[in-house]
């Protein structure tokens, strides 16, 4: 670590003033640009984040913590964790399988498959929710069959999980495809010539190569799964303590003039996002380090 940094400094120090005029803009312009960027960031990112925590803590730490002991809040947190707990592994398996299939094998209709994977990114989350209402709703295609068999899909937990899986579908596959394309399939080919089987190749060659990219995808997928509002709102039915996820619970509290609790739960969501970002940064740093060695 210390080696490259110090050589860089030593090399950069003497011709500093000369390089200045030739490669840099005037000071006022630089400061104006930097200032604008900072003000912009502060105004649109930092300030709202602070506001969420400030509003949540407006009535003291005790009310803040009490918001999480509410049975409805606990139910919302549980449901959010359950949803993410199902959606992320499902998309993990699918994402790896799809990326492996797309990057390691030539086949017909490959570009169609890639387009399909991108579909959830392209449609509005509200549409994603409505799709399930149209298919599984009481008057939808399979709705009456499910009703007759007493199986609840929409306005129940399965619908929320389905909608979340749909919305977070592309995250892992999209993360892996470019990575695996860049890596090519030379190593796998070599493994084949050495007599390795399919599973062996996957566990010993492919997986170690994509490990960090995969983790990155999982983190992004998880963040979206916990934070999704639109699609989930359409299929939820808003039954308290039953089908409200954390984002929906925040809306309900806000609408009940319970602003401190609304922002307390919102701050917990924000905290999850911050942890996610920290993890993401760590994974990026880690994979860069590994790339260098």
């Amino acid at each position, binding site marked *: 670590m210390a080696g490259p940094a110090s050589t860089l400094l030593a090399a950069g120090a003497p011709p500093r003033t000369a390089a200045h005029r030739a490669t840099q803009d005037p000071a006022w312009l630089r400061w104006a640009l930097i200032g604008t960027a900072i003000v912009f960031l502060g105004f649109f990112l930092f300030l709202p984040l602070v506001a969420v925590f400030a509003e949540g803590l407006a009535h003291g730490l005790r009310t803040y913590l009490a918001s999480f002991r509410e049975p409805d809040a606990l139910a919302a947190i549980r449901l959010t964790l359950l949803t993410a707990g199902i959606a992320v592994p499902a998309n993990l398996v699918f994402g790896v399988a799809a990326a492996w299939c797309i990057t390691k094998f030539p086949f017909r209709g490959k570009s169609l498959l890639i387009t399909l994977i991108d579909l959830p990114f392209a449609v509005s989350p509200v549409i994603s929710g409505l799709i399930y209402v149209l298919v599984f709703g*009481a*008057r939808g295609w399979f709705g009456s069959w499910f009703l007759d068999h007493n199986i609840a899909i929409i306005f129940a937990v399965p619908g929320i999980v389905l909608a979340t899986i749909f919305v977070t579908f592309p995250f892992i596959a999209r993360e892996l495809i470019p990575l695996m394309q860049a890596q090519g399939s030379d190593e796998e080919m070599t493994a084949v010539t050495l007599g390795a089987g399919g599973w062996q190749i996957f566990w010993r060659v492919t997986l170690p190569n994509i490990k960090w990219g995969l983790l990155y995808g999982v983190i992004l997928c998880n963040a979206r799964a916990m934070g999704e509002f639109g699609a989930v709102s359409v299929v939820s*039915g808003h039954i308290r303590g039953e089908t409200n996820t954390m984002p929906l619970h925040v809306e309900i509290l806000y*609408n009940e003039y319970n602003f401190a609790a609304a922002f307390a739960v919102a701050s917990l969501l924000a905290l999850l996002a911050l942890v996610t970002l920290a993890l993401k940064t760590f994974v990026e740093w880690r994979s860069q380090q590994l790339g260098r060695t």
Partner: protein
Amino acid sequence: MKLKSLLLAAVALATAAAGSAKTITLLNVSYDPTRELYVDYNAAFAKYWKAKTGAAVVVQQSHGGSGAQARSVVDGLQADVVTLALAADIDALHTICMLVPGVCQKRLPVHSTPYTSTIVLLVRKGNPKGIKDWDDVIRPGVSIVVANPKTSGGARWAYLAAWGYAQQRYGSEAKAREFITELYKHVPVLDSGARGATTTFVKNGIGDVALSWENEAFLAIKEFGADKFEIVVPSTSILAEPPVSVVDRVAKRKGTTAVAKAYLEYLYSDEGQDIAGRNFYRPRNAAIAAKYASVFPQIPLFTIDGLFGGWTKAQQTHFADGGVFDQIYQK
């Protein structure tokens, strides 16, 4: 061997206990402003039902714009009972998918509405724009907050209240239409539900006057303090009747018909009426209403049947696709 039989006995006991202590779960799908009312009422009903039958009952709540909620029930939200903002939304459950039989307003006493309300004008403290009646609402420079009549029941009542006032005051439907057209030019945003509109007005500080459910206006003052908002009682307004109904097909499938019916009937009891009054809904029961006489201002109220020929007709004329509201709002 002994251990095994012991285990079996324990399992049998546990299932028996679970069986007898089985709680009945009802789902009440309601409109936006009734959240606080039904939190109170559900607790009272659970107590009443436990004392009467010994069975525990938990009533789950779901709230949203009245039209949107009816739509969810049509799409399969398993509501045992619906308590919506207006009869047309419950009648939709009948006409679209036969979830309830016939016209909902005839199923329980007094149009199936255990409590009523009306539309009032909520203004900021000191009434800075000097709003005294409906005419002042459409003066230049006054900004109005009201929800979207397409999705919100309260907003439909507000629309009809303003229309009814103008029709009576100026004597013709054409004049009323002019009045309404002008009114919606003063509306900067249409929220989807009544509660959203109230929040826009009280929390976000948008608008000079909110055309609001009377109960919403009282609740806003209770939550935010009488030093921030005041209610202006117009010279005349509409008698808003939010009806209740069992969703027969769902209740039958879930086997909850009896308790669902009792749940709605208990709204008419003295205790139910008192809870309504406490939550700023006008009780139907005269004796209980007298108790809250000082709370609710006396306003001459016209009815939807009297002035608009009932909900079916009003819904068709004003709020259906291509109806009067669509015509005036697109201009």
